[in-house]
């Protein structure tokens, strides 16, 4: 496998997130290597999204550590995580509804570049994601799938070296899902990715290694084929769908 090749870019040590008595994330040790594409799966309430929010700074973990490129980021503000060059897409589309698609993407590019470069990058991103038709439309007026794409555009425009996506294909049509998978493959050429996803077909399209969460812990970590074949995994997750 290729993953031993790169450096560790994300690491959690003994990460716990408890809400009262609920152990949403429980003693998770997780490692992601550079240029790796990792999918996090698990049934509802398995702790994937909570784990994701601990990585992005949206939640402060109860205990344990989060290291990004060796830097201690436990309990950092979301903007501090993003300022390392991390592109983040949340589960519920978080976009600027009252602004045009173009302005949305410009705001992302402008964070990293001067004005001239930001405008070029915005135009390139719009071209790349085929958002030309809705460039000047207010994002609040767009369909759900298009809003997801604007948000992906914001992630791409920041030219991140690490990308964290929470359910990028949620609510997309079949064709949009397919295009999203293609885009993720393309992003993976230059950056590492963590993708939290529910849609099994989508994971089959993109996956290399899959981490299966169950009751706040990592149950197993392997290829999608191996997980599909595993009896325990089928019981906690895949069995529910069959």
């Amino acid at each position, binding site marked *: 496998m290729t993953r031993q090749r790169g450096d560790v870019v994300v690491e959690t040590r003994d990460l716990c997130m408890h809400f009262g008595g609920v152990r949403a994330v429980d003693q998770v040790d997780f490692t992601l290597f550079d240029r790796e594409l990792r999918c996090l799966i698990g049934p509802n309430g398995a702790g994937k999204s909570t784990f994701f929010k601990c990585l992005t700074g949206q939640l402060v973990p109860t205990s344990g550590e989060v290291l990004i490129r060796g830097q201690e980021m436990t309990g950092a503000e979301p*903007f501090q995580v993003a300022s390392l060059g991390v592109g983040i897409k*949340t589960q519920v589309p*978080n976009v600027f509804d009252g602004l045009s698609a173009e302005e949305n993407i410009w705001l992302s590019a402008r964070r990293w570049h001067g004005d001239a470069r930001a405008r070029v990058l915005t135009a390139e991103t719009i071209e790349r994601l085929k958002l030309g038709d809705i460039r000047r439309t207010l994002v609040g007026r767009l369909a759900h799938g298009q809003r997801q794409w604007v948000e992906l555009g914001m992630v791409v425009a920041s030219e991140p070296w690490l990308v964290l996506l929470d359910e990028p294909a949620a609510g997309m049509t079949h064709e949009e899902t397919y295009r999203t998978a293609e885009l993720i493959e393309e992003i993976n050429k230059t950056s590492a990715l963590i993708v939290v996803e529910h849609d099994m077909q989508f994971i089959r399209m993109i996956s290399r290694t899959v981490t299966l969460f169950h009751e706040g812990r990592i149950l197993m970590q392997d290829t999608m084929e191996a997980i599909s074949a595993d009896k325990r995994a089928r019981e906690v997750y895949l069995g529910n769908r069959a």
Partner: protein
Amino acid sequence: MNSGILRQMRPTFVYALLGVVFMFVAPNVLQLFTIINLTTAIALAVLALSLALIWGYGGILCFGQVAFFGLGAYVYTISAINFGGSTWAILMSVLVTSAFAAALGYFIFYGRVSDVYLGVITLTVTLIFFSLIRRTSGPEYKIGNALLGGFNGVSSPPINLPWNTSSFLFPEQVFYVAISALILCYVFVGWLVNTKFGRVCVAIRENELRAELLGYDIRAYKLGIFTIGAGIAAIGGVLFCNGVGRITPDVFNLYNAALTIIWVIVGGRGTLIGPVGATFALFYLTSALGGQTVLNNNLVLGVILIIFVLLVPKGVAPTIIDRVNARRRKVPTRARRRRSSRAEGTQ
């Protein structure tokens, strides 16, 4: 980019130009009494402009914008009495007020106080000023040579020419200063909201979490726009105490705090000309109502507010802009499309 900003600012320049025309025409047409009155209205318009910036663009509902306005007026008056001239007093007023806003804003924004409590805190600060300064009537309450005067207030020395303390301006000249200040503040704010800083502030208004996930420190941006807004309100305060001739604690009362919000609601959030225009309209409506005894003044203002919130919730200016844009889009889009398809055909 500069050409881009200039294009974005075209409407701002148009309104600024109208303001300049008005500045030269008004004193020749209107009577002195009207001009003095107008100076007060202009001061209030600067206050409305400052709230239009921080609420309309920054999304910060500051219920106590008059606190900065009043503080600016008091600092100007006290400094002018002590310094014996207005030049440093104006600078002091803007600096002290901005510093005060920065300190208050630091605790609000870095403490991540939510929107509702921000409104409560700013209003409370305003009312604290009101009660505090009302109680300063004794001779022991003096700052340097300036007696604070309790609820009778302090009379404000008029503005003089820069660094020339013997040449005080006449009321008509103060009018020129006031309207120039309004136009300059208006162009400045119009420029600011089109810079990167302004556009990020608008993004934060739209979605705080997304702005943070893009890597912007929203606390710093909010603190920045809040402080700038307070500085502009202080300029309004300086003009106000020059127009009226004195400053009293009544500037800090609940009625004035609410009135500022009403100007912005009626004029429309997200525009600058709206709140400025609404301030003039409501100022003269209030004056006109003052001349009759049939209806209670506050009752009429209350009814106006309710009508606007229910029927024109976006405010006058955005509603007009939407109408114009909708009409413009309806007809020429087809023409534009035909033109572009023709261009493709010739290629």
